[in-house]
């Protein structure tokens, strides 16, 4: 760590931007300054069920810069790796480069295709939405840029690892993906960190642009250590007849506020979303999945399954937002949460905001304790209590996890579930 400075005034922030991002194009520097000042102006986000005040987030130093070192485990298994927000390597199989696929660190993409980055950056995610999003917009260290040319069908998943070391205090990666018309790709992002003595603030942004008839299988697994306080925001703009499948597994971090948004502003766009989460110990998890239907004949289907144990706390809000004019749209959501302890808490909050008459919308939500009689029944057949709970949790999650189309991702989600059950 070479610099830590006061963060509550503009002067050091401005100096930090100049010192660390001074080589960037003027428009981006101006952008960073603009969001830097917004970050300072904005109060802590107010989240009804997630009090942020007592988490001492303002004590975490954010004006930090760490050397670029690739010390993440299994780094070579990934197409792109960021360590403490800095991209350390980006590689693509030759078959992909031959088809014109571009995968670069975001900073390298700024050098190679500045116009494309300028046009896309911040065009999908709303960087003004809260303090920590503004922080990412101001100080993002690096991240990735992916471009899939028209009609290219990438069969191999592109895998990305975001890693942080124990001494990291602010990790701010940014992902920008553009799938051109009729292209197909699978992208999996993974978030891992070493356990730190001090808290580490993560603010991550993933922006996705799907042109007409593009199809993206997007997967993410979050398994940050308990010292992480994470804010994750993902958004996709979905073109005509395009489709995104979100498959998100949430397991780690001491606290996480995570949102993913699908903007269906062209006819025929579709979004399918599966979120699996498992909270333990004193984890606090706050998730929001939103499908915003703007254009006619758009479809969304959002599913969430969560398991809570110990004194973990979760909130899952599903928002089906059908705007006036989105005739013939179809929005569905279903949330189910299983609680394994008396001291865990979970809320499933389905929300339907419907301004149009000629639509179909449906929701179902439930949160309840594990059936003690079922545990007794299974133990009566010789299963230990852990094994009985494990079987019930498996049965609860299987109908959702087994629909994840990407095998490696599915296996990883199961592995994380297994780890959490035994934890």
């Amino acid at each position, binding site marked *: 760590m070479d610099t830590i400075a006061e963060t509550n005034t503009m002067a050091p922030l401005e100096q930090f931007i100049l010192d660390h991002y001074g080589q960037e194009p003027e428009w981006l520097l101006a952008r960073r300054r603009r969001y830097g000042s917004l970050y300072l102006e904005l109060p802590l986000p107010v989240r009804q069920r997630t009090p942020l005040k007592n988490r001492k987030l303002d004590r975490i130093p954010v004006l930090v810069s760490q050397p670029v070192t690739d010390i993440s485990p299994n780094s070579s298994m990934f197409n792109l790796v960021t360590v403490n927000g800095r991209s350390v390597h980006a590689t693509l199989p030759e078959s992909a480069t031959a088809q014109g696929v571009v995968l670069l660190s975001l900073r390298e993409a700024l050098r190679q295709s500045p116009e494309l980055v300028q046009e896309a950056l911040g065009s999908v995610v709303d960087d003004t939405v809260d303090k920590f999003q503004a922080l990412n917009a101001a100080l993002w260290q690096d991240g990735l840029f992916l471009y899939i040319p028209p009609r290219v069908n990438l069969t191999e998943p592109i895998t990305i690892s975001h890693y942080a070391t124990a001494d990291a205090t602010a990790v701010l990666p940014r992902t920008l993906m553009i799938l051109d018309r009729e292209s197909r790709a699978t992208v999996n992002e993974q978030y891992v960190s070493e356990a730190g003595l001090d808290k580490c603030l993560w603010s991550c942004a993933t922006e996705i642009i799907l042109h007409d008839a593009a199809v993206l299988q997007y997967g993410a697994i979050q398994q940050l250590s308990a010292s992480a306080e994470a804010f994750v925001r993902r958004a996709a703009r979905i073109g005509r007849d395009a489709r995104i499948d979100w498959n998100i597994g949430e397991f780690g971090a001491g606290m996480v506020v995570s949102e993913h948004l699908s903007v269906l502003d062209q006819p025929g766009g579709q979004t399918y979303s599966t979120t699996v989460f498992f909270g333990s110990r004193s984890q606090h998890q706050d998730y929001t999945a939103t499908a915003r239907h703007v254009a006619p004949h758009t479809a969304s289907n959002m599913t969430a399954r969560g398991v809570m144990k110990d004194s973990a706390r979760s909130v899952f809000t599903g928002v089906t937002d059908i705007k006036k004019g989105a005739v013939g749209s179809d929005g569905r959501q279903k949330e189910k949460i299983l609680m394994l302890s008396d001291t865990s808490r979970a809320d499933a909050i389905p929300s339907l905001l419907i301004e149009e008459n000629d639509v179909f919308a449906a929701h179902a939500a439930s949160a309840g304790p594990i059936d003690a009689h079922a545990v007794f029944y299974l133990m009566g057949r010789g299963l230990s209590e852990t094994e009985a709970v494990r079987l019930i949790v498996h049965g*609860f999650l299987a109908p959702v996890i087994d629909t994840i189309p990407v095998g490696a991702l599915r296996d990883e989600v199961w592995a994380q579930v297994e780890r959490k059950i035994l934890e």
Partner: protein
Amino acid sequence: MSTPVLEIKDLHVEIEGKAILKGLTLTVKGGEVHAIMGPNGTGKTSLAQTLMGHPHYTVTSGQVTLDGQDILAMRTDQRARAGLFLAMQYPSEISGVTTANFLRTAINSLRGEGNQIPLKEFRDRLDETMKFLEMDPKFSNRYLNEGFSGGEKKRNEILQMLMLKPRMAVLDEIDSGLDIDAIKVVAKGVKSLNGPEFGSLVITHYQRILSYLKPDFVHIMMDGRVVKSGDYQLAEELESKGYEWVRAEFSTPL
């Protein structure tokens, strides 16, 4: 294997502070079929659940041993591993877990680490047992008890019993809600285990299943204890005279 002995001595049980069993004494040995009959609310199901260790029931005094081992000190899974089995009146539905997968997990839990049943052997035994119980083979791939009819659930309990081969089984109203053909199949299942290494305690309201099982002993339970014991004749007597007859006899000294 030796002959199992289940001994219940002066058992007192409470549920939420209310006395349910009030000094129940009973011994079941391998090779014997015992039936417990009695009106609703006399503690028959409480006895079954207590024997298996349901956390809802609190034993306030008395003893229960299986082959001399204190089972009240054991967790539910340890009781199962000691050879005790309870066919439940209301089996739980376990979503997302197939009957086959569950049975294999259960068999392996009973056999212990490093002694897992080979898949082929398991499949063969399952197929054979289901055929014996006249069950549709598709049954094993359905989620455990989920959406099963009452009769299917009861048959599934017997399937589990035959697959797990307990030494001492408690069957709690295994016949309720079954038609006569299903009762015959269930009775056939229970009888297939009969022998010196298997004892059973059959809880029922009805004489019908007993006419197939031909119990060696019939006990009548009232108000938390056994008030009258006899042989199979007692069940027939009950059938013709009803419980009022016992109740009258039992309440005279009070």
